[in-house]
Every structure is written in C-alpha cells, then in structure tokens.
C-alpha cells in the first residue's frame, strides 16, 4: 500500500464531497469543506500566534469536541507532534510528561510549568479562511503522535507513532471492519486512548460521518442520538457493554437493523458474552480487536464468521504479521506458548528517549503477552509477561499502586495484582496484599490515602493481610504467586 497521510485523505474528501457531513457535536454539524477550513485556520493561528514549527510538540487535552479535532490535524499539517492527554490527568503525571516532552504549547489544560497554553474556545472563535488547493502533507516517517501508555515501572512511557503508522492502522482497521463513506458512527469512547482516537481517524479517512458523544453514561441521550442520527457504527469496550446492559437491558438491539458494525476492544470478553451479542445483532459485523498503543489493532475477529473461535483473539489484522517467539526470539511451532510478537507498518518506531530495551525482536514488536497460534491462524491469549492490570480497559502498573502504599507508610510491604471484578463489570480490579505489621491494623486509612492520590480505577477494591510477599532470590516480587 502506498502511503497517503490521513490529512491528505481528509483533504481529498473536502474537495470531492465538500458538503458531506464529517462531524457532529451536539447541535453543530461540520461538512468536510468546513472541517478543512477549520483545520487550516487553526494551523495558521498556531503558526502566527505561537510560532509553532515542524518538530515541535503540543499537549492537547483529549476533550471530545470539534476544536480538538481541528487542532489535532492542524498540528500535523504544521509537521508538529500531538500529545493527547486525558483531561483528568493527575498533576504528577502531567509534570512527568511535560519534563519528558518539553511541549511548546498546551491546549485545553492549565499548567504551572511556564508552558504557553490556551483553551479550546480560542479555536472555536477563529475566523474561517479558505485553504489553498495545494498543501504540503505530512511524510511517512515523520513523527505524528506521542501516546503515553502504562510503563511496567509505574512511570508512563511515550509511544512514538509516525504518520505512516497512523495511516497504516486506519487502513488495516477500515479494511477489516468495512467502513464506507455512508457510515455514521457514534463515538462515545474516550479519545485519550488509541481505540477512541483511532475511530475518528478511521471514519474521517473513509469520508464517513462521526458523531461525538461525551460518554455513554446518560443512556437516554445515547439512544436519542442513535435514533436522531441514524447511527450505523459504534465502538465500545466490554465494560461499556456491561453498563449498557445493566442500565437498559437489550434496548440497543432496537437499532440492530441499522448497525453495520460494532467495534469492541481493550479488554477481555468471554465467549458467552460474545454469543449474547451474536444473537442480538444477527446482521451486524461485530469486530473485536486485540491491540496495544504500540501496535494498534494487531488482531481482529468477527463474531459471526469466527463463531467457532470465540475463545481466541482472532487472526492477524490485514497487512499485519504475528508470530509467537521464545525468550531468545526464535519462532515457535503452532500450539506452543510464547510471546506474541507483531510486525507491520502500524507498529511504533519506538519509545521516547530510546527506552527500547527488550521492546523488539528485529522488526517484531514484543507485546509482553503470552499466547499461541493454532493451525488455523487463530491466536489464543494466555497471560502477560508484563504485570499490567486492565481495569475495564484502563491499564495500570501494580508498581504505581505499591509505591503509593509505600508513600503512605514506608514500613509497609505490599504487592498488587489484578483480580476478577466481583461485580462482573470491569473484568479486572486491583487487589492489594499487605504484610501485617504493628503500625497499622486496618485498611481504611490506606484506602483513604490511595483515594486521594490515585485515579479511582487504580484504588484497590480488596485488601488482604499476608505474612510475607513472595519474591525471587534477587528480590523481585512474584505477583503471580499471590493469585
């Protein structure tokens, strides 16, 4: 496949179908022509007011609004890099990321670090100008985004994605799901992560329409939007589906006839839950991916056609190669367990500051997940090398929670693991094992402290006293032994 940047793809739609609606946010609809005018106006503003240049980095709050979309593509057209961050980002994490990336500008977030910043309203109020008919588009190997992911050490890790990576991901996903320009997708996922942000790119690069919705929390509003906008595509994580079911039963199936596709991902879903969706949506392509920020959507399965393999994570996505390797990097036979490794144009060029130790086996990215491939090419996920906990699709390192427990009381020894959510909503939740000592006899104070220091999904839902924390001879915590 020849490289065509997302920005060029969207530009082409603004020329060939200028009046087609690209984006809808609340009552406001933006055509492809208006979208590019807004992107262009934002680009000129960022260059003239803030002197933004090729290679600069810009932090953008991942607030799901039109101005985010304009800023995102405008920064790319300048040749600068976007660092999308959750609006609710913790101070400590923001400070770390600013230190690591030295952004020239921050959009949509306050900061105390002397970095220039402004709010999204500024973009909204810009006067629209026409864009030229010839534009210099981003190049294949130019850096586009830096996405921060949960590092195994507890510190976030910056994943560098090039324009080539982004274009390849969108192309692979659209090939599998089968998006067309006629699709109208409802986006209720957060866009600070690869899944949600990716949906915007996928829809806009096929000339479709994307409807922005804050979240699914207000179910009535969600169903109203399904109806009013005649939604044909929808993305969700398994925890959203749990929520939708708890709040509204099977009501989503009222829209089944109109839904061409549902994309699922980011966390485990049981074969039984997949069967429920198959029954509710008999004519919808229900596509579930397995992927990482570093290698977006590396495998895909479609529930109806892969009904005999619902216990797998599907096959390698279009244009992606997957193999299982042993710890020396040798390819293993079908059925044998080893590390899932991914190769393709969508795979990151590496981490910020060259923190690439053990990240690759030659051209293959090491996912840190353990699995096997069967003779039909289906991949079975068995566990993780990296001890990341996945709470409803949000990931965290146990070390981050353990270090906060240590901050509460330096005498305390603790280890955290992911356990099955007793309420069955989030898949996994955090459980903390703490060695009992004389200074503390209940978990309440620890829990209160952690609540004040951590995002709520990172706070343990369960605690247990233990006599000791299992460790290797070299002193490394053996969390698996606590399960």
């Amino acid at each position, binding site marked *: 496949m020849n490289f065509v940047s997302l920005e060029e793809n969207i530009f082409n739609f603004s020329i060939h179908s200028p009046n087609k609606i690209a984006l809808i946010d609340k009552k406001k609809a933006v055509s492809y022509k208006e979208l590019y005018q807004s992107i262009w106006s934002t680009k000129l503003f960022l260059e003239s007011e803030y002197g933004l240049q090729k290679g600069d980095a810009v932090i953008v709050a991942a607030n799901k609004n039109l101005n985010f979309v304009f800023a995102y593509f405008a920064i790319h057209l300048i040749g600068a890099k976007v660092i999308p961050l959750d609006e*609710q980002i913790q101070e400590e994490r923001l400070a770390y990321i600013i230190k690591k990336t030295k952004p020239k500008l921050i959009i949509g977030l306050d900061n105390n670090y002397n970095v220039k910043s402004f709010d999204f309203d500024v973009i909204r109020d810009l006067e629209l100008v026409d864009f030229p008919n010839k534009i210099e588009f981003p190049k294949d190997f130019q850096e586009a985004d830096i996405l921060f992911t949960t590092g195994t050490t507890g510190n976030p890790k910056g994943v560098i994605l090039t324009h080539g990576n982004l274009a390849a991901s969108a192309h692979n996903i659209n090939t599998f799901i089968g998006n067309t320009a006629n699709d109208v997708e409802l986006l209720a996922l957060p866009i600070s992560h690869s899944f949600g942000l990716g949906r915007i790119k996928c829809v806009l690069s096929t000339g479709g329409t994307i409807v922005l919705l*804050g*979240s*699914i*929390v*207000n*179910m*009535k509003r969600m169903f109203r939007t399904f109806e009013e906008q005649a939604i044909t595509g929808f993305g969700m994580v398994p*925890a*959203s589906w749990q*929520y939708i079911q*708890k*709040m*509204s*039963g099977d*009501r989503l199936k009222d829209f089944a006839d109109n839904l061409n596709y549902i994309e699922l991902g980011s966390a485990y879903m049981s074969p039984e839950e997949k069967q429920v969706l198959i029954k509710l949506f008999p004519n919808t392509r229900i596509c579930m991916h397995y992927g990482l920020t570093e290698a977006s959507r590396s495998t895909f399965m479609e529930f109806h056609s892969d009904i005999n393999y619902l216990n797998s994570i599907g096959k390698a996505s279009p244009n992606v190669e997957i193999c299982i390797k042993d710890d020396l990097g040798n390819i293993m036979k079908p059925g044998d367990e080893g590390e899932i490794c991914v190769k393709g144009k969508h795979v990151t060029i590496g981490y910020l500051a060259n923190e690439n130790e053990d990240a690759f086996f030659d051209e293959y990215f090491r996912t840190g997940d353990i699995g096997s491939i069967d003779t039909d090419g289906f991949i079975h996920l068995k566990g993780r090398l990296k001890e990341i906990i996945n709470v*409803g699709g949000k990931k965290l390192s146990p070390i981050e929670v353990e270090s906060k427990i240590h901050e509460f009381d330096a005498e305390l020894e603790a280890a955290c693991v992911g356990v099955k959510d007793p*309420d069955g*909503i*989030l898949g996994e939740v955090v459980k903390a094992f703490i060695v009992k000592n004389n200074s503390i006899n209940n978990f309440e104070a620890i829990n209160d402290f952690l*609540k004040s220091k951590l995002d*709520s*999904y990172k706070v343990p839902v369960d605690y247990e006293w233990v006599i000791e924390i299992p460790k290797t001879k070299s002193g490394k915590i053996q969390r698996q032994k606590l399960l």
Partner: protein
Amino acid sequence: MDIANKVKGIIADSIEVEITKIEEDTAIGDFPKWDSMGQIIIISALEKEFDFKFDPEVIMDLEDVGDMIEAVEEHVSE
C-alpha cells in the same frame, strides 16, 4: 434525616464530592467521577441502603439527583 438528604448523601459519597455541591438538578456528567462507573456505584448504593431493586425501565430515567430522590421515594412509600 429525610429521604432527599439521605439520597444526596449517598450520591455525594459515591462520587466523592461534598454534599453541599449536590443539588436536585445536579446530573450525570457534572462531576468527573459521575461517569458510567459512578452511576453504577450510586445505583448499587441506593439499592443497598433502601433495600430494593430499581426497575430496569426506571434506571434509564435516572438522569439527575431529583430523578433519584423521586424513584427512591416511590419505593419507600410502597
């Protein structure tokens, strides 16, 4: 304590804000923690405290504090 205040207290605890910030028209999405998880936590806490289960049809209509107070009052008076 009347039901309205009790409900407000439960909501405030669930989404970790001061009870003084909870008005009858405070709604889903007004606080960062009142997201889908927050909504589930609130509903479970109300069901536990007042010992009943919301009807699924009713759950969808619970958009703000006033809705919740009303729904609880209906059950308690039954």
